[in-house]
């Protein structure tokens, strides 16, 4: 029952979001596929951070036990907060990369626009 409730809720909110996107915000359905690609990329980044945190944590805990004798339970690695923090890290890193890409794109547009202005000036001078 819980399973069906969760799936029905997700279905309803996704349909509403699709309607708001296409009707209210005038988003193009064609852009949905690239958006899915970006979402997968962002999620992949989050999971890479999670795997890195988990592996590093296990190595540190087991290494710490044998080298220093300090005991930390490996069950700390199954804490759900590790997953949440990894997701924040992954999201931030993804947004950082996107900000760089956005700046590069803005720079390209600006330089194209400058070149266009220069050509217009040269033509006028002719």
């Amino acid at each position, binding site marked *: 029952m*819980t399973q069906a409730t969760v*799936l029905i809720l997700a279905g309803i909110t996704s349909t509403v979001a699709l309607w708001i996107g296409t009707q209210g915000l005038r988003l193009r359905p064609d852009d949905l596929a690239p958006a899915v690609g970006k979402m*997968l*990329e962002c999620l*992949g980044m989050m999971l890479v951070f999670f795997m890195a945190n988990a592996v590093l944590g*296990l190595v540190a805990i087991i290494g710490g036990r044998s080298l220093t004798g300090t*005991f930390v339970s*490996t069950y700390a690695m*199954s804490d759900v907060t590790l997953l949440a923090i990894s997701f924040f890290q992954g999201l931030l890193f993804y947004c950082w990369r996107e900000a760089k890409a956005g700046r590069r794109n803005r720079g390209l547009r600006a330089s194209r626009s400058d070149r266009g202005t220069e050509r217009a000036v040269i033509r006028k001078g002719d």
Partner: protein
Amino acid sequence: MTRWTRLLQWVGLAGIGLFLVAAFSPLPNTLFRWSATAPDIQPVDAIVVLGAAVETDGTLSCESLARTTTAVALYRAGRAPIIVFSGTSSGEGPSEARVRSELAGGLGVPPEAIRTETSALTTREEAARIGAMLQAQNVHRILLVTDSQHMRRARALFARDELQVFPATADARSGAGTSPEARLRLLRDLLGEWLALGYYRVAGYL
């Protein structure tokens, strides 16, 4: 699209796929049943209850409570004359073994039937210390109380000390849970135990 971007997308897709299968299919329940150890309750010399967790205010975790009450029920059914409670403290509070022995006392187990082990931090240490304690008391057959996933690793460790070990499983989590969250928890616990089992084998503890 760079190779790195494509790799990230595949990782993301695998993550979504794993999440959907784990949360919305009976795979975790099937794996739980497949890797669980079945109980084999026999008359023995001692009941050994492995540690789980206790809070600093003395509140036992669900796993600890399930194991303790199972052990008390076995004692009251006349399966063994003594119970050994294991469990350290988490920080400043009382040890898990002490809290459990007080609970067992309240449930009718006499103090002379209770032993405690409060220093072992891992399953391996529990097996070594409790095994030595039991050998000194001429105990050869035990009922081992822990959860059905942890039992395989724990039983193998105790059996190394020439004890005859019978599993008495006590699960705080049902393998029949059908909510997405219950299934995700089952899978998390299973993966954790499989990792621990793999580590114990690689390290030569088993």
